[in-house]
């Protein structure tokens, strides 16, 4: 039984806009799933529908086996949500607002636990500060503290690192890794592909209310992963030497660089032969570089494909 099961969920808003067009997705216990998609792809709507902020038009969602509509108490008590917008009461103090969240989810007062959470998020020194006195990054930490205060089994992070500095992003990744170790299932949305690459176990790509692909990150990278070998020459070539004509090379940077694209999953990549042939053709190498295709390339490829199909 998956931790979260989304079955053919559709969501149409009152103005007729269909934000989700039949989304089905299983999220397993203890994994980190990154949902990638451009703005307006339906990421936030999907999360809001799971968390109870909006109701699905059709289809069903269960969390830990509890239907999010029929058994909303069972489902929601497992779920923590860190929203995209910084929604906090400016005049409240940090500790109060975190305590409020814990109570709201029906959990008895436990200030020792809240202290641990606030310390982990480097917020303990700020516990008696008003929210309005905190920096943007600190406010985002408060949102995370609120979501963690009621010990969720599933944590949704809606664009947790949008507009935060590098240091906080690193911290955030560490926090996510720590939670995963504690067995928490984590779903995060992002449009930073490096983020998905850095921390996710699986990657889902969503666009225009449809899931285009869900796959193990490493499998995805290998399957679609092509590598480029960039061969920098000592002396530029004006045109491709005849001996190399059928190797599928590309000339770049005014003849200074030859680019060879190959598939890392193949038994033989043909690199050794190519290097030999290049020196036989009388060219002198200056440098070699390889570059792995990033998720970004894959992502852009998928989204363009969908647009071409439409």
């Amino acid at each position: 039984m998956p931790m979260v099961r989304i079955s053919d969920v559709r969501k149409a808003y009152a103005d007729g806009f269909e934000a989700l067009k039949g989304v089905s997705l299983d999220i397993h216990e203890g994994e980190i799933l990154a949902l990638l998609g451009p703005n307006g792809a339906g990421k936030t709507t999907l999360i809001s529908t799971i968390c109870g902020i909006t109701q699905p038009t059709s289809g069903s969602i269960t969390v830990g086996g509890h239907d999010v509509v029929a058994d909303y108490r069972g489902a929601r008590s497992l779920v923590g949500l860190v929203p995209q917008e910084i929604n906090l009461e400016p005049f409240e103090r940090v500790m109060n607002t975190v305590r409020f969240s814990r109570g709201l989810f029906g959990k008895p007062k436990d200030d020792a636990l809240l202290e641990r959470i606030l310390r982990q998020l480097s917020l303990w020194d700020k516990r008696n500060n008003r929210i309005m006195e905190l920096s943007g990054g600190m406010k985002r930490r408060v949102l995370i503290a609120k979501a963690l205060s009621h010990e969720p089994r599933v944590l949704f992070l809606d664009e947790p690192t949008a507009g935060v500095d590098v240091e906080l992003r690193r911290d955030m990744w560490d926090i996510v890794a720590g939670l995963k170790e504690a067995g928490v299932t984590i779903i995060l949305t992002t449009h930073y592909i490096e983020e998905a690459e850095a921390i996710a176990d699986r990657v889902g790509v969503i666009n225009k209310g449809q899931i285009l692909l869900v796959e193990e990150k490493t499998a995805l990278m290998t399957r679609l992963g092509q590598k480029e070998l960039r061969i920098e020459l000592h002396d530029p070539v004006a045109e491709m030497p005849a001996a190399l004509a059928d190797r599928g090379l590309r000339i770049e940077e005014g003849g200074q660089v030859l680019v060879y694209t190959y598939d890392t999953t193949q038994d033989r990549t043909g690199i050794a032969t190519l290097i030999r042939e290049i020196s036989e053709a009388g060219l002198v190498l200056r440098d070699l570089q390889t570059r792995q295709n990033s998720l970004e390339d894959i992502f852009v490829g998928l989204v363009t494909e969908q647009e071409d199909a439409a």
Partner: protein
Amino acid sequence: MNWQAIRAIYVFEMSRFFRTLMQSFVSPVISTSLYFVVFGAAIGSRIDEVDGVSYGAFIVPGLIMLSVMTQAISNASFGIYFPKFIGTIYELLSAPINFLEIVMGYVGAAATKALFIGVVILGTSALFVDLTIQHPLAMLAFMVLTCLSFALFGFIIGIWAGNFEQLQLIPLLVVTPLVFLGGSFYSISMLPPVWQTISFFNPVVYLVSGFRWSFFGLADVPIGLSLLAISGFTVLCLVIIWLIFKTGWRIRQ
């Protein structure tokens, strides 16, 4: 029932109140004192007595009602409108709670604040006039019920309001006139017959009348009718709130 959640909302809302305790406490004391100076001393010296009660004492129940109603509405409407306005409502919607628990938390806190202010005004009044309370239990019941029902009404306004202007609109255009024309400062029997008839369409008349009865045993309308009116109003507000949450109107798109 998620009692922890009700408690969390209640405590959170009350902490806002205690943060501004001076303001919460001082402003009703000052405004009540002003009412006594203006109505009690200046006008009261010419009116003398109403149905055997000194005018100063006669206006006390109306004064309390006036503040309790407006405070209950403004506290409850602000309490639920503010999370909507700044976006923290997401947390209420994603928490394992139902509408009844949300209402109990917010309305309970707003009613408590209004009750507190009602008691402060009662205490302040006792400094200015001799007060007798013939039916203390009935007095308390009326006050609590009024706090609750108007807090419920305020909650509805808070959910309906799309901006701060709308938040003030109903209290300003509907509630304040009804309260001032509801017999707070006069007996309905002092009015010309036409206005007496019109007054009986004003729900506030029944509340003020019932409340005044608990002090002096005097009423413009039978006490049973007053009880019926306040209970009916409470039930009506509850039904509307239940419908709002059932349909998700203005809350859950």
